[in-house]
């Protein structure tokens, strides 16, 4: 099934033999070991695994925030640097408290040296896409957790990256807000046709959002398997009661549980 999918879509990112080790004064900790996988153009890939399996480390490598100890990351059509093609959505919203929603969203553009004035149309479109049109003059302390995460997502999205990296952006939210944002994210993914790589430890979330799920095993992080969800494009909250959804979810849960009892 996986090969079928690959034949439809071209490879956007190729990760080969990626290893990262962190070292302090005395210890050398291998966070991820010899990881290789492909990310297809325009797919939604979820990376899931228990705490400490190196999910965020992989994302940081892709974002260019960490240099791998060994291995390569190849990005197709990459004429620019890694960073300009990829933007990252962090686990915490990390909104600058002195900036309004509008100017928080333009932060990435400003830092990349693009004047927000020249991108006003894109900014307005993004504000509307993420349901932030009525909140653009609000400060972060005036927003709910869900809205903060919308701003977090919009800030990365407005830079128009080819690949969006999302590091557990909904992990701090309550279930209702989380489900609402999952739906929104899925909708935006379908509209944007961008490549999304989403790190989570929530099986339900990974199955609901992703086209493929990369399962990691801990200590050091290694790829256990890649699960193709095959759940189609159109997904609603009620879809979580669907038999095929539950079947994929159970399969992922069993695979992760096997790892836990190893």
């Amino acid at each position, binding site marked *: 099934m996986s090969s079928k999918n690959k034949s439809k879509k071209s490879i956007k990112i190729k990760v080969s033999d990626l290893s990262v080790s962190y070292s302090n004064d005395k210890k050398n900790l291998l966070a991820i070991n010899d990881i290789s996988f492909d990310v297809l153009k325009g797919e939604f890939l979820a990376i899931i695994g228990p705490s400490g399996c190196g999910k965020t480390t992989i994302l940081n490598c892709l*974002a*260019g*925030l960490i240099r791998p100890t060994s291995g390569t990351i190849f990005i197709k059509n990459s004429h620019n*640097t890694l*960073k*300009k093609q990829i*933007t*990252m959505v*962090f686990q*915490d919203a*990390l909104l*600058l*408290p*002195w*900036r*309004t929603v509008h100017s928080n969203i333009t*932060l*990435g553009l*400003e*830092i*990349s*040296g693009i004047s927000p004035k020249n991108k006003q149309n894109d900014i307005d479109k993004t504000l509307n896409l993420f349901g932030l049109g009525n909140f653009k003059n609000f*400060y972060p*302390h*005036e927003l709910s957790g869900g809205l903060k995460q919308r701003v977090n997502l919009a800030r990365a999205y407005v*830079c128009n990256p080819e690949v969006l990296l999302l590091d557990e952006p909904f992990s701090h939210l309550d279930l209702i807000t989380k489900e609402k944002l999952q739906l929104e994210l899925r909708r935006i993914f379908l509209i944007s046709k961008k490549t999304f790589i989403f790190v989570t430890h929530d099986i339900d979330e990974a199955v609901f959002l992703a086209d493929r799920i990369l399962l990691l095993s801990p200590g050091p992080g290694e790829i256990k398997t890649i699960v193709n969800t095959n759940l189609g494009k159109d997904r609603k909250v009620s879809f979580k009661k669907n038999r095929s959804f539950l079947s994929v979810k159970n399969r992922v849960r069993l695979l992760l549980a096997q790892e836990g009892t190893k």
Partner: protein
Amino acid sequence: MRKKELFGLNIKLGILGLIAFIILWEVIALFVVNNPLFLTPPHQVVISLHQLFAQGLIYEHLLASLEEFFLGIGLAVIFGVILGIFFGWYKKIHWFFSPLLTSFYAMPTIAIFPLILIWIGLGFWPKVTIVFLAAFFPILINTIAGVRNIDHDFIRLGKSFGGSDLKIITNIIFPATLPFIASGLRMAVIRGLSGMLVAEFYVSNKGIGYLITYFGNTFQTDKLFAMVIIIIFLGLALTLLVNFLEKRLQAWKPEKN
């Protein structure tokens, strides 16, 4: 409502304390000390203050002091903030200079005033230099602390957009450091004012410090007290100015309660 009432009481009690102090001062000066050369009663100080302004003598000196003060403080803010961000950002360079900076910060600036006179000579600039040195270190040290205090995730966020250090500094570091710079500036204003006065005590024929020395040497105690009142008001006005600037720059902050 209760908080408002408490706030009103707070101000009323403060004013009452001030009035009580002035009455006590008047009573002691008139009936206990009874020697205006030693302790001038406050009503006489007010008269002298009025005379100083009415005769126009004070303006020239006030202007000279303010010129030295604002030039020194202005330069201290520019260099203190730029170097503070630089040292805060590049921590190894900061570690290299740290013992030197801490020593200079701990040293009363006026201690090197004779050296400054030898190096620069008499006139306007040694006084500006003293204000600059007195104000520079609190601003520098606070700015460094501000940069160090920033959540590292904000810097990661800036880097994730592929920005240059300069872009991250101007968009994230500098605005995040502003509350620390304001604290440094508040300290710098008082230190700068003290430095300016002491410098004027020694080598000046103009300025508030010079007038204080002059009135002291000529036993014009009433005018000396009047000058002290002017200094108090100047210090208060400058502190209020810093508070106002701080509030304007942090207008986004939610009102407490």
